[in-house]
Every structure is written in structure tokens, then in C-alpha cells.
């Protein structure tokens, strides 16, 4: 059963001078336990689609249904806090928090007590393959690959089954990129996450269970 349904979504960027329709009626469904890759050229609307699905934006027309409920009717803060985890190309870790605290932060937002949150954060960091000495390091003490793994740990700490990744390997070397992709694949296939990755990288697309190709704001191919 689809955890996320995108139904005829239209989205426009409006400025003083022009209105650009970046999504022109996109429809697709996403299921748990699968790894999706959204590919397309720059400006095709894939990142916008990801932001809409992650609850950072709302569609102008059409609906995005999370477990059958339109996101427009949800408390988006709560949706982002509890249901939509995002991994960014540039990691977006909070610079003043250690790796452990970064991972614990979303849990604390959901009311998990500090000690419990830390314990779970430690386990998640280990789960993404990082050694214990990373726990107490600040983001700028970590390599790009380590930061991205911390970001993934933070994402999966949300107990959400939806995980979005926007060019997760864009800032990483090939080896680190492969590790990250393997991790995301493992999360989809072993832990039942619905992982949706926006990427240019055809190698990642090749590993995906489903590839959605976008062009000029429309979904042109799904296989």
C-alpha cells in the first residue's frame, strides 16, 4: 500500500516579474520498503517535488496524500517532525551540536527524554556504520561522508517510514557515496523505509527499485 500519493500536483514559483510552473500535474505513488530515485535535468522540478513531499512546500493544485491524508490538512511542523525525514546534499547538521546531539535532537522534539534519546542516538550512529568516537564530535570535525551518515542517522531517528534524500552523494567522493547509497538501500530493503532520492547520478538510479524520470515539470517515465 502506498504511504505517499502524489496526485496531479502543480506547483508554481511566483515572483514580481513572472510565474514559473515547475510542476505540471505530477502523479505518482510511493510504497514502504522500496528505494525510489527521481532523476532529471536541472530545473526539471525534482527537488521541488521532494520539498513538497517533505512538507516544506504546499502544492498549488493537486494533493499529496500521506497515508491517505492530504498534507495541506496536516500540521506541517508535526508532519516534518514525525513523518518526513530529509537528508540534504550539504548535510544541514546543527553546527553547535555533537553528532550524538544532532541525532537526538528530533527525538527530543518529539518528547523523548534526554537519556533515552541519547541512547537511541548512539545506537543509530552505530547502525549507520560510524565508530563511537564520532558521537561526541561536532559536524565540522567530521568528514563529508561521516556528516552525511550522521544526517541519515538523524533522519531515521524520527521513526518515520518516509526518508527523502536530496542529492545525498553530491558532496561526497565515490567511496563515501557508495557507502551512503548502500545504507539507504539497506534502510529501504531491510528496515522497510520508503526512501526517495533525488539525484543526477545514474549509478544510484540503477540501484533503485523504481526510477522516476522528470522533464519540464512532468513525470515522463516510471520504471
Amino acid at each position, binding site marked *: 500500500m502506498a504511504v505517499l500519493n502524489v496526485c496531479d500536483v502543480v506547483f508554481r514559483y511566483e515572483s514580481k516579474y513572472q510565474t514559473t510552473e515547475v510542476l505540471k500535474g505530477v502523479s505518482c505513488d510511493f510504497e514502504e520498503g522500496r528505494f525510489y530515485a527521481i532523476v532529471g535535468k536541472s530545473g526539471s522540478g525534482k527537488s521541488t517535488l521532494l520539498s513538497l513531499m517533505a512538507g516544506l512546500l504546499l502544492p498549488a493544485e493537486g494533493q499529496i496524500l500521506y497515508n491517505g491524508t492530504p498534507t495541506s490538512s496536516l500540521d506541517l*511542523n508535526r*508532519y516534518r*517532525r514525525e513523518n518526513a525525514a530529509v537528508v540534504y546534499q550539504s548535510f544541514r547538521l*546543527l553546527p553547535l551540536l*555533537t553528532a550524538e546531539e544532532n541525532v537526538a535532537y*528530533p527525538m527530543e*522534539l518529539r518528547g523523548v527524554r534526554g537519556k533515552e534519546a541519547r541512547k537511541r542516538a548512539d545506537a543509530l550512529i552505530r547502525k549507520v556504520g560510524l565508530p563511537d568516537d564520532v558521537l561526541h564530535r561536532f559536524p565540522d570535525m567530521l568528514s563529508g561522508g561521516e556528516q552525511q551518515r550522521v544526517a541519515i542517522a538523524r533522519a531515521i531517528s524520527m521513526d518515520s517510514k518516509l526518508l527523502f534524500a536530496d542529492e545525498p552523494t553530491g558532496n561526497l567522493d565515490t567511496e563515501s557515496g557508495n557507502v551512503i547509497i548502500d545504507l539507504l538501500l539497506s534502510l529501504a530493503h531491510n528496515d522497510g523505509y520508503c526512501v526517495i532520492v533525488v539525484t543526477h547520478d545514474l549509478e544510484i538510479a540503477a540501484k533503485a527499485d523504481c526510477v522516476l524520470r522528470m522533464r519540464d515539470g512532468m513525470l515522463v517515465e516510471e520504471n
Partner: protein
Amino acid sequence: MTAIKNGMKTALRTPGKTLLFSLILTALAVLICLSFCVFSAVRNYIRDCDEYYHTVVDMEFIGKEYPEGYAYDETMASVIQEHQSEIDALRHSDAVIRFEPVTHALAGIEGLKRSDRFVYDPDAAVFYIYVLGYDENSGSFLASVNDVLYCREDFRGKLIMMRTASMNIDERQSLDLGETYLICGHFFQSLTSYSAFFAEPLTYLRGNDAVTVPECVHRDELTPELLSDYEELAESIRVCNDCCTLQVTASADDLVPFHQQELTLSEGRLFEQREYDEAAKVCIVSNRIAYALDLSAGDRIMLSMLTAEGNLFGGKLERSASEQYTVVGIYNRNDNYPACVFIPDASAADAPLIASNGFWLGVFRVKNADITEFLIEASKSEQYGFRFTAYDQGYSTVVEPMSELMLISIIFLAICVALTVGALSLQCHIFITRQREAARTMIAMGSGRAHIGLYFLSAAALLSIPAAIVGCIVGKLMENTVFDILERFAAQFAEQDLRFSSSRVTLVRTLTFTPRVSPVIYIAAGAVLLLAVFLFTLLFSQGVMKDRAVRKKRSRAPRTLKRVRSSTKLSGKLKYAVLSIRRNPVRTVAVLLLCLLVSLFFARLTLSLDGYRTQLDAVRENTVLKGRATDYFGKQINGLVVYRRTYDSLSESDVLSGITVSRDMGHLRFSGVSVTADGEVQDIPAPNIPTTSFGIETMLGQMYFEPGMIMTTSVRNSTVFYFSEPTHMVWLDGFNEERFFDEPDYCVMPEQLMARDGISLGDTAVFILSYDNWLSAIELKVVGSYLTSTGDETILAPLDLQDESPYLQNKGFDSLTFTLDDVSKHDALRDALEKAGFSPVRTSDGPRYYAVIDDEMYLETTHSMERQIKYVTVLYNSLYVLAGIIGFVLAWLLVSSRGKEIAVMRALGTRPFEIVAIFFAEQMLLCGAGLGFGLLIEKLFGHTIGPQLKMLVLLFFAVWLVSSLICLLVSVTKQAYAALAEPE
């Protein structure tokens, strides 16, 4: 051209920002123009004042003797000789523009015969008399005047009562009745209705020899030589009486009478510079002389100069040849300058002029701004008896408030400059730094530095040139409004009540503030602003061109691995705030330090302001003002007429803390000690007091040089101690100032007199008192003694106002001094003086009672402190505002620099109000702790945290928090997506 076109397009395509900055620049241009304009107008006015007002310092010598205008003072001559080097140093000090010694001479004007009462010796006469009889009662001869050698009035054929100096009761037959005598002497005021004449030997100089002519010679005993002596004596008196005093000058308008406008020209003008330079034979005369000789400006007189060694009128007069002088000005009559002639000094270069008579030594023309320094320097010579009185015509009164305005305009200008720098930095940040991508692209496309510079400059020019032009025009249009405000402001400063103030005597004229500003000022202000815009633009564009796009990218050194533990103790909403504070030590320390410094800075400012205010209060608290009834010039303290009703009026005003009046009781001649201090009665002969009017008048004349006595209502506040405190004062055991008034026959004597007459403290001494043309014997018990630095020889006796005869009550007092403990009643005192009928000195309107409050030093001190407080208040308020602006901007920058963090938090689902709470708490903790530490440090150093400081610190705290809050609200309402989409 392409660069210019593109640059302009960039500005035009962001019309909102362009308009905003254009408006900011226009406002700044207006403010800068007006500040420049105020500064320039006030500076011009001060410069005009510097030319318009002349500050002169009158130098006098006040020795032991009563100052005599034309007499030779031997003490003064020796003091001058002894301290010539100090006087020369003063003359050549940098503050002095010129020194003009007072050089007197006599001027003989051909055809002038003076008939006024201000001549040298109006009562002298030399004439033949015919003795008609002798009056036993008055001890005088009755005689008729036969022939006159010299007398101002025509006494020929008139009767006189005459005595001679050598006469006494036993020598009454020295003149034979029915005989003719040639006599010389003076008319005097007598108790009889006849014209009374006192024949006495008179002296004149023949060559270097003093020739004394006997008072009386029988016609038959008159030899040709003796007759010649009488004729020469008569001629000598005539010359002295018909001549005028002559003052040579290098700058007539610096002479105190003209400078202070006591003398004003009724016709003609003062001398012109070329007349000084060319030694022109020109003069200014009194209208008394002009009237006597029927002169108008432009007429000519024949003038000769007469000089004598020593006393101006004494000794042999040496006359220079007559020369023709043109009258260029005629001054209005003034009793103090009845018949003076002023001539340029160079025109009398050959005449021997004598400087060492009189007590006026000269006039220093001093640079207006340097008067205080000069007076400080000059005051060192006061110990020798020199006195310096400054007259600035009101320069300080007029210029000081304007100087304050100028300072305020400078502060305002400085603030405008600071704001301009801030605005230009922001403008350049927005229009240049944010366009660094465009610059990089241009560089990548091969554009040179000049091209990029031109690109940014053209955008800046499009923004700033119209703004500067409009700003200058608006500034010019607002000029008059600003000047109106300025004039009102200046008038507010000038509204000082200086009635009766000793500092008021110099205020004689006011130069109206007529602001004039050259249009060049506006052009200059606009040009400076444009220059600043272009300079900033170039600096910022250089910065952009040096940016990392064109530099080799430096890899950032990895952060040192150190042992950090994740927080285990903190939880909840404030956790992130606390961690943020802990984990960003640079920012934390910087903010803490900044807030601590702000706190200390505010504390210092308020403390210094409080310090000034405390000092001012202390000065006011500890000042006792003194004042006195005086003469027209404000110099005299004794010998006045102050009626009882005036005293009563002042007493009833209930303003003064003390009023002391005294009555001059004439002179005392010591006759002996009747009872010694230990109670032993001495057998001393009774005082020899004459009984005939002749004898009485003779003794009265002789006693003129004996010590004087005053009866006073207070010893300490008596006129004797008004200008100089006693250096030594002793009371008899059991006596003090209060007990002194127990008995009317107590007295306090100067120690040198007691030593001279062998009087001890406690003795009862017998004196002959000459008072009110009468003689009597009195006994006084000496209960106190004193010594002053000036060697006063006045005996003080108690004056009991409650127990006076009606005669004395109506007689009035010879002096009145007062003290005011509570200076807040300063204005009330002025009112009380006015109500009592006093006029300020040197004002001829109103009744002829003058009073002066010796408050010059007090006013100078308090005004200077008040001025300082005003400056500091204006300056400090500006600094407070500046600190507030800085606080606002920094708080904004601190929060806005965390935009990415806020966006991430929002992306992770943190509620907006939680984000606001987190960052607001952080700012509150940081700023609050910094400010609190500052206050704590102040407290530790023992300084009081006053309400003003608390208020300032709280205001800064509030500004900081408000700025943070606004920035936070802006940040959390911004779409998280937009913030996250921005490049790192």
C-alpha cells in the same frame, strides 16, 4: 560605456532598494548640510565677535593710600621699579595684543578758560585785601578784596572772612586793621555765611627749585622779587586750572571709557588707523571744551602739552610749543572725564609724557579667547598691589553659548558621519558584496578591474548624485528654519540674569546673530558625501574582486580534535540556547565583552555626569556670596550714603544671611590710656579740645591724617575685611564677635596702632574724635586687635542699630555689605536690591545708589561647570543613541547569521515559537549576563548604581532583545525551503 550602462541598470532593476538608499542618502545629505551650515554660521559669528568685541584689562595699583588719579605715589613707583620684569613679562605674553600705558599730561588749549568745578584747584586765589575788622567769635578777619592776581570768580570788591595758617588766638593782631595785604590761599566751606578764605603758603616750581610764597605780605613790604613770586604763583595756578588732562593713545577704542562706552561720541569719530600711523595732529575733546570754544568736528585748536615730574599738577610745568590739532570727535560730557583731550600717541612723540602718577597703569588689549589664561598669569602680581580688571564688552556672554552650539553641531556632524559610514557600508554590502557572483562572472568573462569598478561606481552614482543634489537643495530650503531654532536656542542660553553681578559690568554691546552661509558650504557638503560614496564603492568593489572566486581557495584547517562530551545534563527548550552559548566561545565572549563594556561605558558616563553635578552642587552649597553698596564704577566701598530705609528694605526681604552697615565716625587722636588692662587707673591729662570754631577747624584739618574709626554691625563682615581677610585677629579673654556688641565703648584696633601708641589688649584708651565737623573726647576699651596684609589702620566700634538716636537713624550709613549663604536665592537677592532702590554699577538711570554682588568668580565657575554638563549631556545622549543603534544592529546580525540553523530546525519540524524561544533566551542570557557583569564590576569598585544607569542598561537590554525578537520573527516566517535552498 557598457559597464556604466549595466551598473545603472542594476540599480534601476532593484527600485525598492535604490529608492530606500536614495532616501537615506538624501536624509543624510540634508543632515550633513545643515550641520555644516550651523557649524559654519556659528563659526563665522564667533569670528565676527572676535573682531567686534575687544577685551581689555585695566591695570591699576591699589596701595595703602586712597587711590588718587593724578598724584605721584611713591610706593607705586618703587613697586613698579621692583617688579618691572613681571610687568614686562605680562606685556609680552602671547595673549596680549598691545599694552597701552596710561600717559598723562596736561593740555593747554589756546583761548580756553575753564569755568567748571572739575578744575585742578578751584578754590585757590591770589589777591590784595583790605582788612576791615576782626571777629572775636570766629577768630577771623573781615576783609574786602581789592585787586586780584588769580581767582576763578571775580571777587573784586567783595567781603571775605579770612584766617591765616600761622594764626592762632594769641596772634590776632598779626594783621592790622585798615591795611592792604597781598595774600594767597584757598576759599573753604565755613560755618558762617561769609565767603571764607584760608590764607596759607603756596608752592610753585621755578626751574628745579620749589618756591614757597608766604600766605600774607603787607603791601609796603612787597619787594619786586616777592611780587614776581606771587605773579608766577598766580600764573601757575591759572595754567593748571585752565588746562585739560591729555591722554595719548595708540587705540582710543581700547581705553576703558570708550571701550565701556562711558564716553560716547556726540559728533565726529574716533581716530582712524592711518591717523595713528601718520602721527596725524588730530584730537577728540569733551563737549565741555567744544562748548567753551564753540568747536565742531573739523575745527582746529592750538594745543600745547604741559608736563611735570611727579604729581600731574604739581611742580614745574614744562610746556611744549603749541601745535594745531584738528578736532575729529567730540564726546559727551561725563563727570569722570570732564575735560579731556585724546590724541594719537605718535603725534605727541616729542612731548615728555609722565606715566608715574595716578593709580591707572595702563590697559592690556588681550586676545578675546585668552583672557582667562592672561588673568591667571596676571593674578600672580596682585600680591604686590596690582589689580587687574577685565572688560570684554560682553564677548564671553555672547560667544560662550554660541561655542556650545558649535560644539553641538560638531557632535551632530560626527554622528551624521558615523551614520553615513553605516549607511554606506550597508549600501555597499547590498549593492556590491551581494553581487559578487556578477563580479566573478565578469572576471571570468575577461572584464578588468577598471570595468568592474566602473560598473559599481555607475550604480552608486545613479543612487547618490540625485540624493546629494536633492539633499543639498532641501538643506538650503530648511536653512532659515534651522537658523530660527538656532537663534531661539542661543537666546535661551543668553537669558542670564546678570543684574548687579560683578561680571555684568563688562557687557556693553551685543552683536546680533545674523547667520550667513555661503552656498559653497552646501556644494562642499554634497561633494564630501559623494566622495565618501565613491570611496566606499571602490573599497568594497576591490574587496569583491579580491574575493575567493579569483583567489586560490584556501582550504580551511580542520577543527582541532579535542575532547568534547555531548551534553548529558541539559534537556528541554533552553538546551540548545545554553549549548550554543557554551560551544561558541568566540561569539559568547565577544557578546559578553561588548555588553560588559557597554555597561561599564554607561556607568562611566553617568558617573562622570554625576560627578560634575555633585561638584556643581558642592560649589553652590559651599559658596557664600558677598556684595556691597558702591559708587558708579563699583570700586568704592566706604564713604557712601546708604539710608536706613534702604537697609530696612533689604532686611525685610529675608533673602540675605547677613547685612553689615557701618558709619564712618571720622578720625581719632590718641590721648592716653585711662585704665590699663589689669584695672589700674592712669592719671592722664584731659584731652585738649579747642573751643573756638577756628581752633576746631584747625584741629579738624590736622586730624584728617589720624586713623579713622568706623562703627559697624559686624567685625568680620565689616568693610575693613571685605577684600582681605585679617591675617591675625585676637580677642581679649572672654570676648568674641558677639560680646563685642555688649557695650558701645568697646573697640577693635589694628595691631600696628596699638604698638605705636603703647596700647595693650584690655586697655581703656582716651581719644579725641573728630566727627561731623565737631570734636569730642571718648573712651574706648580695646577688646580685640587685628592685622591685615594691606596694613589697615581703621578702629572698629560696635554699631547698635536698635539703640540709635533719631538723628543718627536719619543720617544713613557710609557702607553696606551683605552676604548670601543660600545661592539659590541669587535671583531673589537681585530683586531685593532693585526693590531697595539700588542700580547696577555703570548705569546712570534710576536712583544713584549702586550695588554690586561680587559673584564673578562664582558665576564663572558655575557657568563653566554647567556648560561642561551641557556638553557632556549632549555628547552622552548622542553616545547612548549610538550605542543603542550599535546594539540593535549587532543583535540583528547575530540572529540573522543563524538563518541556516533556524531553517534546519524548521525543516526538522521545530515549532516557530520554540525557535524564537531558544534564540531569544540565548540573546537574553548573553546580553543580560554581559550587562550584569558590568554592573557587578561597578559595584565591586564601590560605585553607586544610580537610577539613570539602571535605566540606560535596561534600555540597551530592551533594544537588544527587541532587535533580536524582530529578526527572529522575520527569520522564522521565512520559508525554510528558501533558506535551505540558498548556497552554503
